[in-house]
């Protein structure tokens, strides 16, 4: 009954490969996000989708392509992986507007990507 689940939790791959990380939420939220946490633990938003529509696309290379088949899923596909892509990728979800106004994010457990 995990609220936000992402798979895989660990991913080790070679430079130049293409890989995907999947995310699913069962909270009924309408907005999903991808955050990247680098080796210094800094968390930065990459993408945000509301009702399957892209609403945030921070300056992320074109090699990263999110896909949201429905409100409950947001996948991240990465082409031509580079060493600098090694990081922990967090999926999160929230209501874009909730009654409290705070729109609290619920995070998945993260997916650690290591590019060799």
């Amino acid at each position, binding site marked *: 009954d995990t609220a936000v689940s992402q798979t895989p939790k660990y991913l080790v791959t070679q430079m130049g490969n293409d890989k995907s990380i999947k995310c699913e939420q069962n909270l009924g939220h309408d*907005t999903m*996000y991808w955050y990247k946490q680098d080796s*210094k*633990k*800094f*968390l*930065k*938003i990459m993408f*945000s989708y*509301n009702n399957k529509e892209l*609403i*945030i696309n921070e300056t992320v290379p074109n090699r990263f392509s999110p896909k949201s088949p429905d409100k409950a899923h947001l996948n991240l596909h990465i082409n031509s992986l580079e060493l600098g892509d090694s990081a*922990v990728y*967090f999926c*999160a979800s929230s209501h*874009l*507007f909730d009654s*409290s*106004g*705070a*729109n*609290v*994010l*619920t*995070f998945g*457990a*993260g997916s*650690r990507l290591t590019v060799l």
Partner: protein
Amino acid sequence: AQTVTQSQPEMSVQEAETVTLSCTYDTSESDYYLFWYKQPPSRQMILVIRQEAYKQQNATENRFSVNFQKAAKSFSLKISDSQLGDAAMYFCAYRSAINTDKLIFGTGTRLQVFP
């Protein structure tokens, strides 16, 4: 653009003692939300406490409380009666009440708890 600053990369506290983690932020907005998230070694991001900027009263959640100083743009987290399980990275975060679509994080403070 809004920024969040955590000036303490690392802090330590003795079990059962109290520790305060600092956070300052920069914004020109008057309405926003502030959060503290905890990230233990398991990597899971866990919401600890949140504060609405329009509320003057400081938020409290059991052993966790904040000191919200809006004029000073300061949002510190106080952990009372520290427990070994409190050891984690703590992230301060800001969310605009207008542009609600993203959370802006500080760089984090690693808290160690000694028995």
